[in-house]
């Protein structure tokens, strides 16, 4: 790894520490979290203590001011945990929700929330998707109307990660319904327990089971003027801006999952005997695994390069869209083969690969579905 042109020794040290944390604090303990449907808050606080939740945030808030490549390291290593639900709990907090505050928050807002976010005491969620608007972000219907001293939010949000247990939500609502499509939305900071804001439903999912996902309801939910996040009516740009980071992170998580699945499967086929030899001795298996490993390696180089472009401030929407689309699909191909080579035991509850297959499915849907990502690529061809 020290031969990488993208990572320095500090990235490497971070990788070592996160890997050790995942191997000792997550892998042996994750099973019950899948049952309860939530990653325990003390796990997040421990990660906060180790600085994993403030990788790029300012030192004044306890952050370490590293770059996106360090974030990529975090996401890959969390992906290796075999518990996609745990990984997404953390990554939504660090890289999909809290960046809204870090990018657009006022000094007062940042001073108020960032220290708790970095410590893992304040967990965040981002609420954009609605029953009637997913990929088509600009079509959201939830609206905020001005009232004395603030705003009243009305509408509902769905599929919101950390939605049941978060402390602070960054919520997109229409404030300027008659404006141009990209200038209708404002982001609001909504705290858990705000009057008129309820968690309508905890959603049951195919995978990512140690992550809590919710449907949220806003009924005349009052937020003060101080809870407006960033520029009024410009929420759409904030969402689009953070999509780049989100998609790189989701790509990295997917590749961490894919690599771990290949590692587990290599171990399995090298030991499993059939027809007088190990499965590894069968050329059909060996070559397929070699092919998938090659694809993962190629995807990783695309990921690292795109993250590096981003870190250089270069416009790389095309590359980042490729990363999200390609990694989201690849992880599913890898899981399919890895489960296949585990045979019947790979279909049994309790085998990590069985869970990893279920967890991987959403990677081509959430945070930018494959088709939508390839449309972004196509626009730039």
């Amino acid at each position, binding site marked *: 790894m020290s031969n990488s042109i993208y990572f320095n020794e500090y990235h490497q*040290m971070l990788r070592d520490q996160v890997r050790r944390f995942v191997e000792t604090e997550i892998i042996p303990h994750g099973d019950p979290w899948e049952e309860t449907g939530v990653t325990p808050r003390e796990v997040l606080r421990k990660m906060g203590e180790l600085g994993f939740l403030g990788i790029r945030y300012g030192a004044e808030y306890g952050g370490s001011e590293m770059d996106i490549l360090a974030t990529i390291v975090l996401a890959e290593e969390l992906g290796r945990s075999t518990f996609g639900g745990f990984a997404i709990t953390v990554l939504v907090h660090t890289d999909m929700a809290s960046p809204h505050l870090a990018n657009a928050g006022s000094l007062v807002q940042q001073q108020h929330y960032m220290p708790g976010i970095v410590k893992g005491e304040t967990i965040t969620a981002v609420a954009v998707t609605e029953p009637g608007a997913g990929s088509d972000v600009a079509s959201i219907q939830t609206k905020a109307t001005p009232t004395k001293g603030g705003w009243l939010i009305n509408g509902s949000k769905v599929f919101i990660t950390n939605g049941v247990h978060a402390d602070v939500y960054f919520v997109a609502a229409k404030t300027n319904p008659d404006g141009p499509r990209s200038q209708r939305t404002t982001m609001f900071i909504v705290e858990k327990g705000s009057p008129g804001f309820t968690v309508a439903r905890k959603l049951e999912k195919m995978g990512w089971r140690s992550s809590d996902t919710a449907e949220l309801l806003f009924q005349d939910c009052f937020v003060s003027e101080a809870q407006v996040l960033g520029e009024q009516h410009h929420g759409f740009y904030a969402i689009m801006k953070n999509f780049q980071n989100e998609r790189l992170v989701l790509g990295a998580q997917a590749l961490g999952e894919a690599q771990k699945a290949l590692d587990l499967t290599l171990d399995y086929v090298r030991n499993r005997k059939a027809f007088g030899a190990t499965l590894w001795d069968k050329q059909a298996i060996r070559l397929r695994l070699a092919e998938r490993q090659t694809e993962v390696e190629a995807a990783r180089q695309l990921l690292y390069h795109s993250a590096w472009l981003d870190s250089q401030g270069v416009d790389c929407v095309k590359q980042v869209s490729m990363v999200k689309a390609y990694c989201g699909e690849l992880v599913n191909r890898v899981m399919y083969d890895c489960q296949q080579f585990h045979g019947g035991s790979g279909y049994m509850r309790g085998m990590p690969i069985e869970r990893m297959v279920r967890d991987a499915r959403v990677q081509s849907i959430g945070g930018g579905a494959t088709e939508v990502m390839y449309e972004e690529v196509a626009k730039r061809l």
Partner: protein
Amino acid sequence: MKILVPVKRVIDANVKVRVKSDQSGVELANIKMAMNPFCEIAVEAALRMREAGQADEVIVVSAGVSQCHETLRTGLAMGADRAILIEDDQDLEPLVVAKLLKAVCEREEPGLVLLGKQAIDGDNNQTGQMLSALLGWSNATFASSIEVNDDHFKVTRELDSGLESVTANRPSVITVDLRLNEPRYASLPNIMKAKKKPMDKLTAADLGVDSSPRLQVVKVEEPPARQAGIKVSSAEELVDKLRNEAKVI
């Protein structure tokens, strides 16, 4: 008191080691390296002594190729105060390392040198003992607990036959065993702080030591593959097999 902690860069414990095809050694190209786990325990022990007010400075030192600076940086990220890198591209034998460390001890005058009992690469288990002999300092090996006193250390040693308590006068060379502690994580803020901590670079020549090898590696081979075990159906059968087949009881 100053504590000197020598740390070694070795193949990461999770890597499956492979013998080079020409049998001259093990494959090191593109292999993940890490701090020897026993050395991590030594660093942790030293840091705890400093935190308990029993030491005021922890210095990590490593001898070997220039990439050993990464191992030292890890020690600094865990909390060591400064580092010394003795850069040398040769394969350093335990006696050479002991001589280099002796020279460092003469410069730094630590009250304690804490080492891992062995490194997981060669499992030599020699450097600490050789160092204490060269220095003429007291020595306790395989420590599972260390009590710091004004002029001596009380050390519990882990042996196959049980635990042994010894007293080692200061200055001392102590090697640590697995159960002494569980090393801390290097938190990300501490990793960033490690950037700014001083690292001195020396060579064997600076320390007046001839680092050339005296031993020659003839051949490195994989150990024979382990045979699969068998399942026995009863304690009687087990005893029978141990007595009549394995002939160990």
